[in-house]
């Protein structure tokens, strides 16, 4: 048991002393997860809106595919992205393998079905009378889209948090696509895995605490936004 307690003390020491290696992993995680969640929201919310709002043939099948992709294993995404980004792969020329943008691509693929699926659910649960209310006030298509999204903002936020949580805590993609390179592509989760394997519990616990703190900050901010709007 002692080594766990010691780990906690060491964690506070590492964070308080501004340990460069620890902060490098934190920075890499924040950066890469922000890129990926930004991209997945930008692409996923309009697609989710269309999936939830419009009726078209094959909608149910498409919905099943999206729901299935929500459970995509991270190592499988890592494998696919690796295959595409490796020098022999179709996107090898871009030199994205073992880089933070490479990890961000994989994490976007991970978050995208979650954002699309949960946005579609939010839009489907929208009251049909809302469309009539907005259109009867003279809204054009863009205003109808934006106002409808604003009406389901809380459900969309919940979807965004779920996607962010998945992106922040994944190991498979960061490990396979990023390569866990110190000072470069090492993220909090890959660092925890590595340090635990090395028996360095302090570093692992420190990074775990940071991960939890980031999640707490995000949730507090979201709660504030929900109360405010």
């Amino acid at each position, binding site marked *: 048991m002692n080594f766990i307690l010691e780990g906690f003390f060491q964690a506070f020491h590492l964070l308080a002393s501004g340990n460069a290696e620890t902060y490098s992993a934190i920075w890499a995680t924040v950066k890469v997860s922000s890129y990926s969640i930004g991209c997945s929201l930008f692409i996923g919310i309009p697609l989710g809106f269309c999936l939830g709002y419009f009726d078209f043939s094959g909608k149910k099948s498409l919905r099943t595919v999206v729901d299935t992709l929500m459970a995509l294993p991270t190592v499988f995404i890592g494998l696919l992205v690796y295959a595409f980004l490796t020098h022999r792969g179709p996107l090898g020329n871009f030199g994205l393998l073992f880089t933070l943008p490479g990890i961000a691509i994989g994490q976007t693929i991970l978050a995208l079905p979650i954002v699309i699926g949960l946005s579609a659910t939010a839009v489907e649960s929208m*009251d049909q*009378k*809302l*469309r*009539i*209310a*907005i*259109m*009867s*006030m*003279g*809204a*054009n*298509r863009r*205003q109808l889209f934006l*106002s409808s999204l*604003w*009406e389901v903002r809380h459900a969309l936020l919940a979807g965004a948090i779920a996607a962010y949580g998945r992106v922040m805590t994944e190991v498979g993609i960061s490990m396979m696509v990023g390569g866990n390179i110190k000072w470069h592509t090492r993220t909090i989760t890959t660092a925890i895995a590595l340090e635990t394997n090395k028996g360095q519990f302090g570093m692992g616990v420190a990074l775990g605490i940071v991960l939890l703190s980031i999640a707490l900050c995000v949730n507090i901010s979201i709660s504030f936004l929900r109360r405010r709007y």
Partner: protein
Amino acid sequence: MVPPIYEIRSLKHSYADKTVLDIEHLTVQPASIVGLIGPNGSGKSTLLRMLGLIESPTQGKILFNGREVEPFSDEARFLITLLPQEPFLMKRSVFKNVAYGLKIRGHSSDLVSRVNEALALVGLAGEDFARRPWDALSGGEAQRVALAARLALKPEVLLLDEPTASVDAASAQLIKEVSLRARQELGTTLIIASHNWDWLYEVCEEVRHLFKGRLFGAGKENVIFGPWHQGQCNLWEKRLPDGQHIRVSEPPEPDAVAIVEPTSVAGASDATLADAEANILQGMVSRLALEKTNAEIVVTILIGNLPFTSKLPRQQVQQENLYPGRKVRLNYNPYSVKWL
């Protein structure tokens, strides 16, 4: 003649394979008040949604000010507004709900004054009220806020779908007054779907009857549902709730729906009532309402619990001494019955 503000040509609308609207031709004059009467499911709300450019018809055209329009048409979307039957407010404050349409139109300078003016019109003035969230309002208040949001736009056309159906008497009265004021002060064309016949006959220049998606007559026809059973003298009949029979010519099918137009209504003594013949129904006057255009009186007669209406000249109402509660004989021609 002033060109119509609305013209409908060969409009058909279906949900799945079921046709819910089938209107060959309809025109609405600018600044007029048109009433739509019909039972639930007759297509009133669907027609209002078409006219409000919320939905496109499956077939046919809707012309607004002579131009063909459809949902999101730029030439019409700022001029037409629809108040749905159930009030629906967006998840924002009362002020933001009323200001929404104005913001869309780019009115930012006089936003506060126009919102306050509209709220005052529906009797909900006050900054405290404007700050209330959408979910802190009663049903009547929500409907009045929804109406204020439409009135703030000063629309050319205001479509009202059962505006008084789900509110208390005071809110209903206010909604009626304010809608008419919009017509009087702004020249707004009002198209009102309502079950409140008295109100419609009182305020509308034209009342149209809608049944199974088709427009017919001017609202005074009486719709009688089957089933019909073969009776005497080649006539078919239906037993009314009070034991009387209504006799008609042969229906196209036993469950057909008949439209019966009374030919005369006369006051009756108990003696004449006892002598009732075929083609005559006995009933009691339940309502009298003045029709706006040609000053006829719309008489509603209860036969059993089935309401029949007939339009009569004022003099006849006076001569026959018709008043609510008066027993009457209602004459009709069984061979002039129309079938839907």
